[in-house]
């Protein structure tokens, strides 16, 4: 009955949980709380006598959980690690958040930018979206050009 230990990240805060389960009955440890639960079937839990119907979709370490009419998002992380996305965000790299076309590059190499200042304007699904600078600094590299079709995750601009 040692159970599994898991670490979740939601926004900036990290939560450690422990789950003990045997034969559909278990206890969920979170902070000081120990919450008994029953696995009632596929996508169905009972907690404190309340039925909870849920759906979980997982995409790598990103989990979407539909529960009680709302969808929540959680990132599973290694113990003590920062969220993956956060780690990437601090690096000064501006990457395409989705596949699409580069419409405009709003900065030039050598420019000084403020945090959140728009750097690249992209078009995806007929809509424009603006990619902001993840931090203040100087533009040291531009790796895309207007009109270019880029994949999701492509490095577009680097700020130092």
């Amino acid at each position: 009955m040692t159970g599994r230990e898991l670490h979740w990240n939601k926004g900036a805060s990290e939560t450690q949980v422990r789950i003990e389960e045997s034969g559909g009955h278990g206890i969920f440890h979170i902070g000081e709380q120990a919450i008994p639960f029953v696995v009632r079937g596929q996508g169905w839990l009972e907690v404190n006598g309340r039925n909870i119907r849920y759906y979980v979709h997982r995409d790598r370490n990103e989990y979407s959980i539909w529960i009680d009419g709302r969808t929540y998002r959680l990132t599973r992380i290694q113990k003590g690690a920062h969220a993956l996305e956060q780690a990437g965000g601090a690096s000064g790299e501006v990457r395409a958040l989705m596949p699409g076309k580069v419409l405009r590059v709003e900065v030039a190499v050598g420019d000084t930018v403020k945090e959140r200042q728009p750097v690249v304007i992209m078009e995806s699904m007929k809509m424009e979206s603006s990619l902001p600078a993840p931090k203040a600094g100087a533009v040291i590299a531009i790796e895309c050009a207007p009109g270019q079709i880029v994949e999701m995750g492509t490095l577009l601009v680097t700020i130092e």
Partner: protein
Amino acid sequence: MIRKVLAANRGEIAIRIFTTLREMGIHTVAVYTDPDAHALHVRSADESIRIESYLQPDEIVSAARQAGADAIHPGYGFLSENTSLSTACEAAGITFIGPRTDTIRRMGDKLESKRLMEKAGVPVVPSWDRNPHDSEFPVLVKAVGGGGGKGMRLVEEPSQLAEAKAAASREAGKAFGDDRVFVEKYVRNPRHIEFQILGDAHGNAVHVFERECSIQRRHQKVIEETPSPALTPGLRARMGDAAVAAAKAVGYVNAGTVEFIVGPDGRFYFLEMNTRLQVEHPVTEMTTGLDLVREQIRIAEGNPLSFTQSDLRQTGHSIECRIYAEVPEEQFRPDIGTVAVYRPPSGAGVRLDSGIEENSEVGFHYDPMLAKLVVWAGSRSQAIHKMQRALSEFVLLGVRNNIDFLHRVISHPEFGEGKIDTHFLERHSALLRPATEEVPVEALLAASLSSARTPAVTGSATAAFTDVWTSGPWRIS
């Protein structure tokens, strides 16, 4: 008699058109581009033809010829309001299910359409070459030569007008090489209210009441409803008369929409005429019992309207929510992915017009609208409760979407009181994020159970690759 129709469109509207066609015993033809090769609309037609683009009229017409279709339904967007498709249809002897080319052209020209409506006695936003009467303030000073906000000034008081005109004139001169300016009525906090019209080839025209479309983001409608909470029976009648006058002024044939803006004082002004079926047409169908696509087909076949204005009635209340693949919390950026779990709501008073099913791919090539959730109930407050119920039952995972956001909007007290205008979402920007970011303990438990025996992925890669590991409710094994 139309026997076979090609829908020159994709997604939910192509499927919605096929649905009525199938009920009328008419054969259906889909067109699709490469990114849509596996799309649901293609599988929903009797046959399908590959094209390079939904925007090439010649391709569409030759696809119709190849399939032996005798008519083309343009849906909305794409070529629906482009005379090139209606012209190509005429040349090929194929029926275009929409208004005459001449109507599309004249209503597409925003200046000509305004002049024409003014002549027909339809109120348009007033403008003056010189100075308006004091009672007309606030007003806008606008440049004759251009747009985009340059050379534009909002003037609240008559005393400020002269200075504003001088400044705007200087700015316009620099920007457009033309320093002429004029003064236009400024409608503060307007509502967007449109009237559905139907006209036949025999000169008959009716309106099918209004749709309130004031809830918008990025100038795109998100929630529509009918009846409008802002209209009194008297105002509805006057606006309806204006809509019919607008239809008759252009000899309108088929289904169209007359868009108005309505000020808080109840004065209304013609904005533009949409010469096609609207996205939000279902709320009209729910409250009047008409099938607007069926009416479009019958009109295109040359039939006279089978009813007069006095036969039409509004019953109950209907609301539509557009389900988008987008993240309202991140400036409504669109999202893509695979629809991993799709459990839409059902039951009494719920209608779903969907372009997707479980396992559908949502790509970045086209509009991120996935489906339209429509409800009907006896009253506006019951319809809001029904929409709350339906949205809270709607499970859609794998692609981020606006379902939770829509629930927050329709649950806002001012929405409940009908206090809506086109600035609603700007005014209530707190709606863009949930009231609390806290994840309930049950969600953590569900996620923890689902993460079962697999280790967390480590490394520095951006977690942006869509690699679906599980779909559907996680199975306890």
